[in-house]
């Protein structure tokens, strides 16, 4: 007790200054330690988070070759590519004209038909509705196609024209065009743009 009083009494101005300084220093050190620890923890978390991303073998550029022989004008074929169906349609001249002359204000995601095909006769689109991922109907002659000659999504009623462009929501964008290339007149390779 006595010792404490003497000590406090003895404390010079210089010592008091030092005390303030060392408090500042401790605050600073605490801040730096927290920051370094936090960044370190975040970095350590990243491999765990990234492990949930598609693995290398899942991602491996997969391609499928499609034999186009036997598909008559007006008919289609559906193939599986990277786990999703791809719609291939051999369009009739009527359908091509219809697609090319589609008024842009009918389209929710305006895009010209010419920009979506490599040969006007063949339309290749991923058969996955851009709303929530259902497979639209219309590939088989017996299935409902909607009002625009293309596809109708059974889940929430989106409609696509014969160019795969969305004409009625809730789908926000057109059916996606996958990378593909014609190897010859009757073989199509899906998954790459180069032969």
């Amino acid at each position, binding site marked *: 007790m006595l010792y404490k009083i003497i000590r406090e009494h003895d404390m010079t101005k210089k010592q008091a200054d030092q005390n303030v300084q060392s408090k500042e220093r401790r605050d600073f050190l605490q801040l730096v330690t927290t920051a370094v620890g936090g960044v370190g923890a975040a970095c350590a978390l990243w491999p765990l988070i990234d492990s949930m991303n*598609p693995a290398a073998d*899942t991602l491996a550029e997969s391609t499928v070759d499609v034999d186009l022989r036997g598909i008559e004008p007006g008919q289609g074929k559906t193939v599986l590519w990277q786990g999703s169906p791809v719609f291939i349609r051999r369009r009739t001249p009527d359908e091509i004209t219809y697609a090319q002359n589609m008024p842009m204000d009918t389209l929710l995601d305006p895009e010209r038909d010419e920009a979506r095909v490599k040969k006007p006769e063949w339309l290749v689109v991923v058969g996955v509705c851009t709303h929530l*991922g*259902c497979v639209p109907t219309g590939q088989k002659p017996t299935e409902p196609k909607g009002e625009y000659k293309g596809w109708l999504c059974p*889940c*929430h*009623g989106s409609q696509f024209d014969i160019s795969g462009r969305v004409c009625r*929501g*809730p*789908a926000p964008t057109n059916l996606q065009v996958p990378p593909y290339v014609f190897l010859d007149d009757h073989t199509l390779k899906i998954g790459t743009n180069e032969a």
Partner: protein
Amino acid sequence: MNNNKVVQWIDTRLPIFTFMRHALKEYPTPKNLNFLWNTGSLAGITLLIMIITGITLAMHYCPDPEDAFQSVERIMRDVNYGWLIRYIHMNGASFFFVLVYIHIFRGMYYGSYKSPRELLWILGVVIFLMMMATAFMGYVLPWGQMSFWGAKVITNLFSAIPIVGDTIVHWLLGGPTVGAPTLNRFFALHYLLPFGIVAIVCLHMVALHQFGSNNPSGVDPKHPSEQIPFHPYYTVKDLLGLSIYLFVFAFVVFFAPNFFGEPENYNPANSMVTPVHIVPEWYFLPFYAILRSIPSKLGGVMGMFGAVFVLFLLPWLDRSRVRSATFRPLYRPLFWVFVLNSIVLGWIGSQPPEGIYLIIGRGATAYYFFHFFVLLPLLSVIEKPLPVPDSITLYLDQKKRAV
């Protein structure tokens, strides 16, 4: 205190017996709780039933797209009592949601979310969210057509997020689309989340015991005579409730096990064909209806999540000082309109999104949010509550005189 020497020895070092005596025996409880207060203990028991049946199912289930469907069929046909365990687990999910919905509506009617029970309420909403995630991932496991397409549609909801949406979806799925990595991780999470729910339920209990249970009058107990010890009074009442509940549960499991189910899910998953009419499980229908009523992808998704998240704000949207709807002449009818509106939303969610259904769905969606964001704040200002009795005793006297 127990005079068993062993119990005493343990309790001095680890006071679990004291804790249990406080929580399950002495816990002072308002004497006027009605049967709606049974839903809490019943939900807890159902959670246990789900975990026990889930672990035994997991001993036979294979989380691989090649085997999943077959392994569930094997559970149904070949595993001893597999059919029973699966039907309990399958229907248990539905019963769990029935209880929790009643539990939530009870809280809304009696104002149990109001001060000082805001955190208790928020923990409840967290449990509700975790239950929805668990049930959604569980439904994917049997890998039928509804499992697959449900998983696809629900995970694709996240693609509505601007810019990073698709990256997030690929991260959730572990591939370009729903497939083997998805099923495997959903199984891992479906196994894990219920234990997280147990943890939050414990916090829910701690928050409950801080101020004790609310009661139908909404008035805090003022005198020890208005409270009774939990045991034997409410243990007995909970047991009576449990007996009736298990009777109904067993009836459904044995006589109508597929009542809540969707026949389409007995077809194996096919990634090339979407079923013509996909519907989620009944307990998601109101939210699904909100999703489809808003004619924009991002808007629909925000509406759907908003419909759950608005529950977090409830304690601050309803500013009325009076807890129980019994004393709120305007809130009481509007509460029932809200219940009805929720049922209408559920019905709309099961119908195709066209014509008259779409119109009703939009109206009901608008009303849902109108209730929270306009009616509740407005009522807090304009409503004139009936005189609130000063104590539970006076409330009960009043009730007796009214009869």
